[in-house]
């Protein structure tokens, strides 16, 4: 299952896209097309992708976020990615794209860590 719902924000030119379900090979194009249409209409340059409802993210989903980032940058706009939790946040961290994509941690829950990071006591 996949849904991408667009909402207008108070600031002009800012749109939030709430992603629900699996952002993967099957749904990646839908997200990219949604953003491209929005940008082509001139409706928005600044985009927030809200991943609060995203349950899965694979490499094709990460690539979709990167394509959205490039599309907004080409219009002089920006991308933020918010709400990533659990395995979705893990994938962004492992792929090391979190800083580049402007990933912000969810508002309430602290960012989750993977099983362990770096060197453990031997």
């Amino acid at each position, binding site marked *: 299952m996949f849904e991408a719902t667009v909402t207008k924000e108070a600031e002009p030119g800012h749109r939030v896209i709430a992603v629900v379900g699996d952002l993967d*090979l099957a749904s990646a194009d839908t997200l990219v097309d949604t953003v491209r249409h929005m940008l082509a209409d001139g409706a928005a340059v600044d985009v927030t992708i809200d991943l609060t409802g995203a349950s899965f993210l*694979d*490499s*094709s989903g*990460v*690539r979709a976020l*990167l*394509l959205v980032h*490039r599309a907004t940058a080409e219009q002089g706009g920006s991308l933020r990615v918010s709400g990533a939790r659990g395995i979705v946040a893990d994938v962004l961290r*492992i*792929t*090391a*794209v979190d800083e*580049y994509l402007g990933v912000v941690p969810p508002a309430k829950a602290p960012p989750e860590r993977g*099983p*362990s*990071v*770096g*060197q*453990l006591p*031997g």
Partner: protein
Amino acid sequence: MASYPADLYRALADLITAGHLVQPSAMADTVNESLRPLGMRCRIFLVDLEQRALRALPEAGTAAPEPLPVEDGLAGEAFMNVRMRRSPERPDMLWVPVMDGTERLGVAELTVPVDLPVDDADTHAALTAMTGLLGHLIQAKTSYGDTLRTIRRSRPMSIQGELLWQNLPPLTFATDNVVISALLEPCYEVGGDSFDYAVDNDVVHLGIFDAVGHGLTAGLTTVLTLAAVRAARSRGGDLVDLALAGDQALTSQFSDLRYTSAVLAELDIRTGLLRYLNAGHPAPVVIRGGRAVAYLDERRRMPLGLSDPQGAVAEYQLELGDRLLLYSDGVTEAHVPGGPQFGLDRLIELAQRNIADGLPAPEILRRLTRAVVDRQNGQLNDDATLMMVDWTTAAGPRILP
């Protein structure tokens, strides 16, 4: 009367000479012509890519026997444990592992004269030398035809599989100080995963790669990355140069942000110092004394193809006996719909159990891969790659017959 070791070595020399003018499909017949004067007969079986069955080489005038299971029977036992096995019912029948160096290719069923002193050390050494030569010959002949390649396939190979398998190094390599073993699934439909290694001047170069997406496009992406990294390595580049070469190759050929996550590493097998660069890939694990003691994820950069200037080389000091386990996310994320993921903890636990059982490294990987594939009821929807590097002092006895 008969002088078996000497006769065996003479047959071996005959085989080397005869082998020069043999087409791949006639390998088995040529081997048997060399053995006939000794009253011996040989049936060669090669393991299929998924390492589930041993498949007989064709012989003129005889129907091919059914494939033999790896996990059941004497042939499979000889293959799994890399040890010669003698049939309890038929003392004239031996199963001998066929190796290309340390790479397990299959087994040979040898019918020998009843008076052959198999347990005699010299005879045993001569038999092992003979099957060792068989392995080298089979490997050398494989490139010249389709027979020896296709015998190892239980079903047709996809285009991306053809592309990838031609570019992978052999699945196992060892010196006295290090054992490297790797395995990749699904063998026939593999898409974006690949691995690489090269051992020169006491340095092991390692790479594991996972290109975005699936199918042929992912296959092209991963093979391009592999070639770019290899070219930079042969020019003497350091790990950062290798990553930059991957970036450049991918951005020059694809304009749509095709990327490949990777770990590139160099292990000095004199000192155990491991240098690595993690480009957006799951962190390799260092296993020591049955526990994970480190996850190699320091100084990460984004995957190759995304031209991230931030990545840098990190270091980790291995201890003798450590095992380095590299894997792709298709291993840890393997699951059936609604079921739990295979998980890193399970992977480490299983690896440790097999290490403790004293199994040869390629057999450990075969069992781990089998467990991952079984977790998805035999149907992987993502590539799964495992690579294990064992820094050790006694590699030989465990993986040679």
